[in-house]
Every structure is written in C-alpha cells, then in structure tokens.
C-alpha cells in the first residue's frame, strides 16, 4: 500500500505541476530568450553547427529530396547549398553569373554558355561542358515543367562551353535555367534512393530524409570553403513548435514562423529578422462574363475600395507589401513603374453613381433596376492570407454599398469551371525566374487557364507577341510595364499585395538573409559568431 501511495503522490505532483505551468505561462515570458550559450557551437570541439528549422521543406511541398530533376526538389538542392545553377538572380532579380561566366545569344535560337573553369563536383570531378550537357539531358527527360519552359532542340558541349539551340526563339531561356531545376549535378555519379545528389555547392548532403537534411561543408568549394562546418535542415511544420524550438535555442534560424509569433522576435536584441518582398502575389481577377462587371466604372469602383495598406499592415501584421502592379518594387518593371486606382472610398462611390448605382431604398446597399449590387467573391483557404483579403474587401466594399458574398472553398476549381463567381482572389508566384513573360502568358493570354476572368485585350495580345520574340532586357522590361499598365487601366485585375518572406535568426548568425527569389538560403557566407 505504501508503494501505491508513493506512486499516487508522484503522479499527482506531476499533474499539478503541468497544470500550474499552464496558468503561470505569461509570468515567465521575460526569461525566454535570455540564453546566449549557443548549442550551435558544438560543445568541446570548435566545429560550428547551424540548425535551421523551416516549414518549407517536406513531402507536401514536393521538395523532399535533392534531385533537381524531380518535381520541386531542385528548390531544396539550391536553397540548402548543395546544387547551384549556371546563373542566379541578384536582389533586383537581374541575372548574374554563378557556375557560368557569361552567355552569348548567337541568334534567335542559339545560346552559348561559357562555364567557370574552377568548379568541381563533391566527388572531385571537374564540372565540364560535357557534365552540364548530361545534366540537362536528364532534366529534359525526367522533369515535368522544364521541357516546355526550355523548348530545347539540341545541346552541344565543347570544353567549358555548352551550346543550346531552341525550337523557337526563347528570350527567357537564361532566366528559365535559373529555376532550381537547372541546378547542375554530376549525373554520372548517380542519384541515391533517397534522392541525394552530387552537386557543386558549398555543402555536401550526408543524409537526406523527408524531414531532415544533414549537410557538411565541402572542402574544395570553388568560391571558398563554408565557414560553418555542419548544417542541419529540419522540417518543422507546426508554427508553435517552430517558435519554441527557436526560443529554446534548439535551432539557430527559422523560416515560415506564423505571423502571430513573429512579433515575439521583433525589436528583440537576441534575434535578427531578415525580410524580402517576394513575387508571390495576392490578386483579384474580375469576371468579364458577369454583366455588372462589364462596366469599367464598377470594376474601378471596386479597385478603389480595396484597402491594400490596411490589409497588409493590420491583417497580415506587416508581412506583406501593398502591390500596385504584378511585380514587387525590386524588379525593374515593378510596382513604382505603374499606376493603379488609389484607395479612395468617395471616388469609388462617385464611380458607382456614374454607373447608375445608388441606394434608392436606404438599405445600405446600392442598387440599379431594383437589384442590389452583390458580388460573389471566390477564393480558397490553403493560403492563409486569402480569406483575410476577402474579409478586408467585404468590410471596405460594404462602405460603398456593395454586398460581398465570400465563398472561400477548396473546391474553387468547380466554381471556376461553372463560372459561378464575380471576383476570384488567388495567390501566384508571378516571376519565379525574374521574367515577366510567364505571368502574362498564364493570366492574360486568351487561351490560358489562368485567365479566369476571360479578359481579352487586343493591345495586350499584340504587346505579348512582341514580348515573345524580344531579346533586349530593357525593351522587355518596357513591354512588361506597358502590359501591366493596360491591365490596370482596364481594371481587369487588382493586385492586392506581395508576400514578405522573413527569416528569424539568433543573434550572431550572419550571412543568412531572405532573398526575393526565395531560392538562396544557405551559402558559404553563413557564419555563427
């Protein structure tokens, strides 16, 4: 009986302790981040270890593995410093050489790429034109998107040059091979069963699993051996766990913290936040098949009543930037180059009056021919920002007398097919390879599935035809501005915001910054002090 009592008392103490902790939660908040002894410096040896927790790695993202030729695994390969592409993007999303030194557009369909002479794969083999050729051949054979994007006719290798010929003029070719699927791996070295590869980056993957990648630095990295010896990339899908793992010091940096947790680390001396505007765009398409929306004044009135500032500042806690055009400000053809209707409820009301809508029966909603102006707002929930955008729009549009019926459903494709919507709000990565053409082709082309609102403009079709064959970067940029401006003048789309991506790191972590492309995370510059 005595033993029984002892066990009972012990158990009770345990349960009381945990319930009390639940109550005392808020009192101990101050001491959370006081720890400075870094678990990351690895104890007795001077080996530097960097633990990184991210929500962006995993089977559900299609990127669990490092083989760039399968699905989205290339993203992991490039993000975590195993694979590198021939060219990369700078902060302004312009092309920069990486494994290549330069390229030459010989004619409309021929591109010669000159490779660096000092790059070796992780197995010590030199990266040659032949190796790059083999890698691209495997990419074109295995990957789903690459063959269409690149449209390659033939590849020739000679020493440190590779010559690509395309079937049709492809001005965005070099941009396209910056997509992480273009990461260069040693195909002859083989790909393991767990999708590990032999790349050229600063880190070699020792172990790859769907939840974790363990990396060690590559001694002969062409751009200088990495400062941190080991990196562990951990997939942590739960936002609260991620937050606490950072607070407990178990990880040194995170990506994908929930908006609510981010404020815990803001203005905190023990942590640093690095953010960048990405081209992930939240936008609304107007359905041209809806009769009321065929009136440009109604579309413009709605556009003028979208409070982008309020949406990004309040509802997204500052984790977004109001958009004007389709591309963020760091692009040469970004936000500042175009104009869109400003948030102005009075002007919006005026536009509705001009379109014949007034509140005749005093019910708070404008009407015409006895019919209230009601908008069916279709969106989905898998991007947490979209339902918030719907809420925000519902509130502000009510102020100008428009009744918004929100339909946030993951069956949205059925509604799109049936045309059962007036406005469709969605998220889209507008320029994954820094070029504008991709977004226009998917959203403005008459035959594109992404053109959900059935928008048609002769001028835009003509400008897009020019863009398809224009190789000059400045002229392409100019065309991108003209196309966006036309879309905005027509009020065919309203671009609400761009997503801001943030890394939170422990103090002392350097060389780990958010990039607008969302491709480059772990580099040889990463260090822990």
């Amino acid at each position: 009986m005595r033993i029984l009592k002892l066990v009972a008392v012990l158990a009770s103490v345990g349960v009381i302790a945990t319930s009390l902790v639940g109550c005392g939660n808020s009192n101990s908040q101050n001491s959370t981040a006081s720890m400075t002894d870094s678990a990351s410096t690895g104890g007795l040896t001077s080996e530097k270890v960097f633990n990184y927790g991210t929500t962006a790695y995993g089977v559900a993202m299609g990127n669990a593995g490092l083989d760039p030729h399968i699905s989205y695994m290339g993203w992991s390969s490039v993000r975590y410093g195993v694979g590198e592409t021939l060219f990369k993007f700078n902060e302004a999303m312009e092309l920069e050489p990486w494994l290549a030194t330069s390229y030459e557009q010989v004619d409309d369909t021929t591109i010669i790429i000159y490779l660096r002479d000092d790059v070796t794969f992780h197995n010590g083999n030199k990266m040659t034109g032949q190796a790059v050729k083999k890698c691209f051949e495997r990419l074109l054979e295995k990957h789903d998107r690459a063959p269409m994007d690149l449209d390659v006719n033939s590849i020739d290798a000679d020493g440190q040059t590779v010559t690509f010929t395309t079937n049709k003029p492809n001005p965005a070719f070099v941009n396209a091979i910056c997509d992480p699927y273009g990461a260069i791996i040693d195909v002859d070295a083989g790909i393991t069963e767990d999708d590990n590869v032999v790349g050229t980056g600063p880190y070699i993957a020792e172990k790859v699993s769907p939840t974790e990648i363990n990396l060690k630095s590559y001694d002969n990295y062409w751009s200088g051996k990495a400062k941190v010896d080991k990196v562990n990339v951990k997939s942590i899908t739960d936002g609260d766990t991620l937050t606490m793992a950072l607070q407990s010091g178990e990880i040194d940096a995170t990506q994908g913290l929930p908006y609510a947790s981010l404020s815990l680390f803001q203005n905190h001396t023990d942590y640093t936040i690095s953010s960048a505007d990405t081209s992930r765009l939240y936008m609304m398409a107007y359905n041209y098949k809806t009769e009321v929306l065929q009136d440009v004044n109604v579309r413009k009135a709605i556009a003028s009543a979208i409070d982008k500032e309020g949406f990004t500042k309040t509802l997204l806690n500052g984790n977004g930037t109001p958009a004007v055009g389709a591309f963020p400000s760091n692009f040469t053809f970004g936000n500042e180059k175009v104009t869109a209707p400003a948030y102005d409820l009075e002007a919006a009301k005026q536009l509705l009056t001009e379109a014949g809508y007034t509140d005749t029966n005093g019910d708070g909603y404008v009407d015409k021919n006895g019919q209230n102006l009601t908008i069916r707002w279709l969106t989905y929930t898998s991007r947490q920002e979209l339902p918030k955008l719907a809420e925000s729009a519902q509130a502000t549009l009510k102020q100008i007398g428009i009744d918004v019926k929100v339909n946030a459903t993951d069956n949205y494709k059925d509604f799109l097919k049936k045309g059962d919507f007036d406005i469709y709000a969605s998220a889209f990565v507008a320029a994954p390879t820094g070029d504008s053409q991709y977004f226009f082709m998917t959203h403005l082309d008459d035959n594109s599935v992404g053109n959900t609102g059935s928008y048609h403009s002769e001028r835009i079709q003509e400008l897009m035809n020019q863009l398809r064959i224009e190789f000059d970067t400045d002229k392409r940029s100019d065309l991108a501005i003209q196309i966006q401006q036309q879309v905005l003048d027509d009020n065919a789309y309203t671009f609400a915001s761009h997503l801001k991506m943030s890394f939170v790191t422990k103090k002392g972590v350097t060389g780990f910054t958010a990039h607008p492309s969302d491709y480059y995370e772990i580099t040889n510059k990463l260090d822990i002090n």
Partner: protein
Amino acid sequence: MYVRRRRCYIVKYVLKRLFMVIPILLGITFLSFALMQTASGDVIDAIYEQAGGVPSEEIVAAKRAELGLDKPFIVQYFIWLGGVLTGNMGNSYVSNRPVFQDFMSHLPATVILTLSSIFITVLFSIPLGILSAVKHNKITDYIIRILTFVGNAMPGFFLSLVLLYLFSVQLKWLPATGNNGFVSIILPTVTLAIAMTAKYTRQVRAAVLDELKKDYVLGARSRGVKERIILYFSVLKSSLLTIVTLLGLSIGSLLGGTAIIESIFMWPGVGKLAVDAITMRDYPVIQMYVIWMAVIFVVINLLTDIIYYYLDPRIRLQKER
C-alpha cells in the same frame, strides 16, 4: 482432453476472425477510394498549388495520364487492387517512393510511442484508480478526481504546447522536436499519457468501486480474508475486463498515429504521414493507411476477445458449451 478441445476452439475462432478481414478490407478500401473521388481536386492540383504556379494544361494532362488519374474511378480502383494482390502497394504520387517502404519506415516511431504511452498510462492509472476507490470520498479520492478532471479536460495540442514551453523553452531539459534519441520520446509520451491516465484512473476507480460493493467481497471480508488479498486477487482481476476493452481501443487508435501530437513534436509516425497524404490527395498512401487501420482494429479486437476468454470464466464456459 479439455485442454485440447479448448485449444482447438481458439484456433478455429482465430482463423474465422482472420478470414473476416478480407471482406472488411475490400469494403473499406473501396469506400475510401470512392470518398476520395468525391473530394474536388487531385494530387496534381495539390502539388502545383503548393508551389504557387499554374503549369500549362499539357503538363498537367501528361502528369495525370502518367499516374493513371485520367481513367474512370472504378478502373483506377481495380488497377490499384490488382497491384495489391500481387504484393505491390504502388508508389506515392508525391514522393514517388514505394508506399509500403515509406509506411514501414514510419511505423516503428508510432509503435514505440504507443507502447511507451500505454506503459506509462497503465503504470499510473491502475494504482491511482485503486487508491481512489479504496479511499472513496476521502481527501485522497477528491484530489485524484480533480486531477483526472483537469487531465481529461486539457486538449492534447494545448497540453503539448504547455509541456514544450516548460521543459523545452524554460528549463531546456528536453528537445522540442523529434529525432534526438530517447529524450525525444518523453514529451510526446507524457502528453498522450496524461490524458489517457486521467481517463483510465476514473475507469479503474469506477470498476473497483463496483466490485467492492459485491457480495463476494463482503463474504471474503466476513471470512477474515485480508483486505489486500481481496483487492489484488479478486477485485482487481474482475475489474481488468473493463480496462482491457479500453486498452484495446486506445492501442488501436494510437497505432493509427496521433497526427496532432506527431506534428507538434515532429515525431515521424504514421499519423502525420496519413494527414499529409490526405491533404495532397496521395491515394496510394491513403489506401495503405486505410488497410493498416482496418488490420489493426481487427487484430486488436481479436486479441481483446482472446484475453476476455482467459480472464472471464463465464465467457469461456459459455462458448465451450
């Protein structure tokens, strides 16, 4: 003679029950396959949506054809069934790895977590329950009852966050996420065990109280049998029937994985695998999970029945007659 008849009966019974698994599996896999089809969208949509792009229709159509998703649902089901009958559970649509291997690699984590949490639960709930019953309406009983209320009322996700905050963030004794050897299992085990212990303690208490009121206890007491002997050899044994039923159900559901706990602690079990597969509409993985769940529940029920058979002479004698 008697023993042989008994063994023969059990073998026949087990075979009959195992044979029943076949129609159950057919029915349940067909049903889940059909249900998945009614949900809008498929794995191809899910993959590209995650990445935030819209590939051209040709790419989507080609990918769909490659996975056989363009075929009518009934054809898809029979292709899958054909594969299963020849020992091929198919490849995951998302990771492209063999489903069986993927699933098996997640299973040990789930089994370990099940065993550890059941062990802790039994270790604490039986003594606490008995103590509570013996001290009926005394202060010890009240304290235990209040604690079990609290334990029952706390949702798993909340409890796990509280534990994480205390032991990981504040005290830094335990890691927040899995894969760090033995220490990693402590928090998920405790989270699961607290809720179960609370439930089981109350069940044990009720069962023991019930038994204590019975005539045979009074009889034994009046014959001067020691209270401890009555408690351990008669009362506890009779109360075990209730506990075994409950344990069967708990083990069944634990072996199915605990998606929320697994997500929070990044414990690489089958629960999270299943939830991810459902989100991505990864049919082969979902089907593997459905088969697993059906099999464990059939097996656990069978085991429970066999244990009844040994524990309760009434059942044994009735069946053998």
